[in-house]
């Protein structure tokens, strides 16, 4: 068994803030079989070569969104990416692009979290339903659920921000995941918070910084399709703009 074991050259970007000025590369020979994930390759490196290697992980099954990182320059979830798909090639693992590197493969996602918070990612009921007793339910038809369900699959992994050149060029851009969640709550029939979220959608740093590159939808590990949500958000914002021109609110 050992003799037939395949190995791959895996290069990992290292950065130790207490001693390094800049990130540097370290290469390891990692044995793998048909279901070795990138995350498992990192475990192997940590267990056998470099105990100090830091990376985030939790669920190992593409639910928690902790292990987003760049594999050969493309944002991936390490737990959902397999070495077999890179057979015959080498592999380079880097921390998620467009975020400050904290240590090795760990990035500072504060900006992503703050932006998601900004759009109020929770159901804001209207005045009539605000004090609804807990034993009563909102009614929702399958179609009303279908309207937002795809966009509710976001796990906040940050892969779309790493893929977005507009976020790279202008970090003020609120970004794909925040705009997707904004759309997701706006089209939920239980929600009445669209007006509160509108300023973040209508502004320059909102939907209008997007130029429809479409790479976010390409890399999204949960197939949320953020670029679709942003275009639908632009339609929402443009409608609001036209109505505001006809009948200004302020």
């Amino acid at each position: 068994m050992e003799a037939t074991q395949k190995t791959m050259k895996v290069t990992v970007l290292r950065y130790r803030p207490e001693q390094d000025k800049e990130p540097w590369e370290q290469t390891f020979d990692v044995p793998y079989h048909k279901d070795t994930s990138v995350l498992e390759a990192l475990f192997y490196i940590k267990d056998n070569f470099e105990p100090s290697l830091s990376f985030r992980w939790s669920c190992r099954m593409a639910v928690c969104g902790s292990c987003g990182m760049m594999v050969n320059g493309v944002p991936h979830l390490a737990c959902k990416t397999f070495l077999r798909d890179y057979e015959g090639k080498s592999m380079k693992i880097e921390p998620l692009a467009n975020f400050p590197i904290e240590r090795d493969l760990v990035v500072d996602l504060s900006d992503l979290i703050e932006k998601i918070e900004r759009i109020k990612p929770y159901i804001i009921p209207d005045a009539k339903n605000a004090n609804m007793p807990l034993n009563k339910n909102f009614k929702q038809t399958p179609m009303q659920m279908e309207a937002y369900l795809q966009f509710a699959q976001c796990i906040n992994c940050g892969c779309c921000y790493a893929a977005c050149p507009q976020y790279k060029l202008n970090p003020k851009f609120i970004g794909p995941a925040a705009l997707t969640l904004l759309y997701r709550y706006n089209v939920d029939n239980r929600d009445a918070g669209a007006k509160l979220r509108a300023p973040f959608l209508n502004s320059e740093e909102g939907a209008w910084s997007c130029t429809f590159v479409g790479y976010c939808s390409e890399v999204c590990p949960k197939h949320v399709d953020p670029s679709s949500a942003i275009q639908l958000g632009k339609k929402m914002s443009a409608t609001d703009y036209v109505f505001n021109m006809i009948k200004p609110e302020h």
Partner: protein
Amino acid sequence: MRQFLPTRSDEPMYWLLFGAGGMVASMVLPAIMVVLIAAGYTSDDLNSGFLNLNQVHNIFSNWLLSLIVFGVVFLLSFYALHRMHHSSHDFGIHSKLTWYIAYGLAAAVSFVSLGLQLLMYVKYF
């Protein structure tokens, strides 16, 4: 509280023009290019070549056809320059200047076209 909220962008106006212009560029412009190429190819025949004088006279003396030509020029120029304005941002140029150049040029091209078309319309009748 309100002053902390971001201000509304005027981008929807340009985006709607861009969307309409992009549709024109994808649906109508290929055929226009074929006509222009054909006109160049048959330009030796001044009486029955593509875009011969009688044909263009008939286009620009008809207010509806002339308006359609203006609409194509207007939407295409805003579409193209809107995209180029955003491309300047993609090349790392973040300045209000490209905004003035892009939409100023688009407005200028549209106004020149409209003025000349009105001039011709008046001249032909």
